[in-house]
């Protein structure tokens, strides 16, 4: 951002102060550093949360993968056998706490994503039609899980699920996470449909296609990026959710965030940093995918050249 020629000295100084402030906020103070600090510390050879002398002088001996190994080992029947032979794989798969949590997280997130994407997409198709009676009210109801504080949602579901026997079950968690995920699907798909040219549907119909064929061949390809990014939001929401899990899950349904939560409250070890690093890598991946989808969607809808 170049300064125009007419500014005086004070304005020039002010401008640099402003730029420095922004740089500080961006990098050092707030947005990125806290997340990035976790990454090198997860390779710490010592069980500390601070940079050791050796780490600062880049001594290779000060770095290790022991906390990453610990992710696998924690809970294994025979942790000493890690990486020797093949039998440790079965042991880790069956017994490692973090792998158990990861399996739960993935199962619950996939279940919740499928449920909320199906329900949300179909609902968005209806919502995008302006003739729908009571559209604003329905929209408000469907979006409400996003606004109601998570603690209120969780406690309400806790009471309901205890009565109908869904507490401490996978199905209960999938339902709870689907509730939290549907608003994102509804919002993204409705937004995609708002730029949708409805005459394409009529064109399809006039050429003799049945409603189902029109949906498959005309609507679906155009709104697919919206559906996918909604699904990703739903997946991310479920994968990151911990309050509902605290209230509605037993030890058996423990997810990764739940495991981190108890790790942070009980015995905090750098293993959590290793898990955090893996999650940061995952979120970078997820962010890239969403961004690519968004660009593709804009291109398809002709919003950008």
């Amino acid at each position: 951002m170049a300064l125009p020629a007419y500014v005086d000295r004070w304005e020039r100084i002010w401008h640099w102060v402003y730029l420095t402030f922004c740089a500080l906020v961006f990098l050092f103070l707030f947005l990125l550093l806290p997340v990035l600090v976790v990454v090198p510390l997860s390779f710490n050879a010592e069980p500390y949360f601070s940079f050791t002398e050796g780490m600062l002088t880049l001594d290779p001996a000060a770095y290790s993968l022991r906390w990453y190994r610990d992710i696998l080992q924690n809970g294994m029947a025979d942790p000493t056998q890690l990486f020797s032979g093949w039998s440790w794989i079965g042991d880790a798969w069956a017994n490692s706490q973090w792998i158990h949590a990861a399996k739960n997280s993935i199962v619950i997130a996939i279940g919740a994503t499928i449920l909320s994407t199906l329900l949300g997409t179909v609902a968005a198709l209806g919502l995008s039609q302006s003739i729908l009676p009571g559209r604003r009210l329905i929209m408000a109801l469907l979006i409400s899980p996003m606004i109601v504080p998570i603690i209120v949602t969780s406690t309400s579901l806790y009471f309901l699920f205890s009565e109908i026997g869904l507490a401490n079950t996978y199905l209960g968690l999938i339902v709870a996470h689907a509730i939290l995920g549907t608003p994102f699907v509804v919002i993204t798909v409705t937004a995609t449909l708002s730029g949708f040219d409805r005459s394409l549907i009529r064109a399809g119909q006039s050429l003799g296609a049945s409603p189902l064929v029109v949906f498959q061949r005309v609507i679906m390809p155009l709104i697919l990026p919206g559906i996918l990014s909604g699904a990703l939001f739903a997946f991310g929401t479920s994968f990151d959710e911990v309050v509902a899990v605290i209230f509605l899950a037993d030890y058996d349904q423990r997810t990764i965030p739940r495991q981190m939560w108890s790790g942070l409250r009980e015995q905090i070890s750098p293993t959590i940093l290793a898990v955090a690093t893996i999650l940061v890598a995952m979120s970078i991946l997820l962010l890239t995918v969403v961004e690519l989808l968004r660009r593709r969607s804009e291109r398809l809808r002709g919003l950008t050249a």
Partner: protein
Amino acid sequence: MTVTAITSPDDSRSIKRELTRSLRRRKLQAFVLVAPLLLFILFMFIYPIGGMLLRSVYSPDFARAMPATVAAIAEWPGSGTPPETVWAGVARDMLALQQRNEAGPVAAALNVEMSGARSLVLKTARNAGKLTAPYREAMVTLDPMWNDARIWQAIKRLSSPVTPRFYLAAVDMKVDEAGSIVSQPEDRQIYRSLFLRTLLISGVVTLCCLILGYPVAHLLANLPLRISNILMIFVLLPFWTSLLVRTTAWIVLLQKQGVVNSLLVWSHVLTDETRAELIFNRTGTILAMTHILLPFMILPLYSVMKTVSPVYMKAARSLGANQFVAFTKVYVPQTFAGVAAGCLLVFILAVGYYITPALVGGESGTLISNMIAYHIQKSLNWGLAAALGAILLTAILALYWTFNRLTKIDIIGLG
């Protein structure tokens, strides 16, 4: 093929009918599409919330546990001590409770109304088998506290299943022995100050986010798209990173043996003995929450600032305003919609926050959500938890309604 013109009124009416019918069909079609999700949300979300709200005013457990007492005490006007029928009812219920071993919850409920009632109830239940008519004398001999009119008034209050007492408790009030609504004694007031603290911390977090977020959003909105798209990743990456990871990062940074303290010791600002308490208190909550909620401030600000045309600033400058005046008088007012949206969004999210305060808040940094969780999981006072939740929910819905009135911005920056 012949083309027939619509001439007779009969034809036009049938066309109108056809149109209405087709419109109705399309409406039905749209509704059928929405129905599955609507039903899902109504039954699995709205209905349980309704159940929770009901729980905050309706508590039939006491009446269910003491049926004979409740039936008899309805006749009693409430002054002095009740007639013998009520005493007999209590004795009968106590015996039944003792046999089912369920006197505990009744004792606990009564103790909330009048301290000391717990041991009275447990003692009476233990000796219920020995009580004989006339029950009045027998019970007073067992424990003279039964002669106190206040215990009977407490029983009468509890015997009605619809009760305002959870809401009263949630705002540090109670029905006193004389039946009038009064504040709790100073040393037992918790919730008013907790609500205030929640509002205060949320306000401070919102302000911090605004101070940090406004310049950043301004920069993002005014840089060339190529560069701002890259910088936007810096905003979106924390947004997409797990909440637990970000909270962990702050614990790592701020705890006593953490990065910031070590840095300060290393640079001789502090010594090893004077490491600062940066986390597990209010400071920690405010810092971590500001970081976590900052993207929610930047995104709406950015989307509004994108639409502000630079010509107004140039016009102001050409009319003689310096940079500062032009910025405050011309630029800032044009971004008020974004400021309102960002502030309300951050405030709404902050008021209902649970995870971060629970992990980094310590004693002084916990919010109302943490108290709700405590009453659900630890103290098991579900009615009070429900009342606190209902107050929180009402506040947030009111804020959101304001938010919707003030702005029409795509807050989440989706699609």
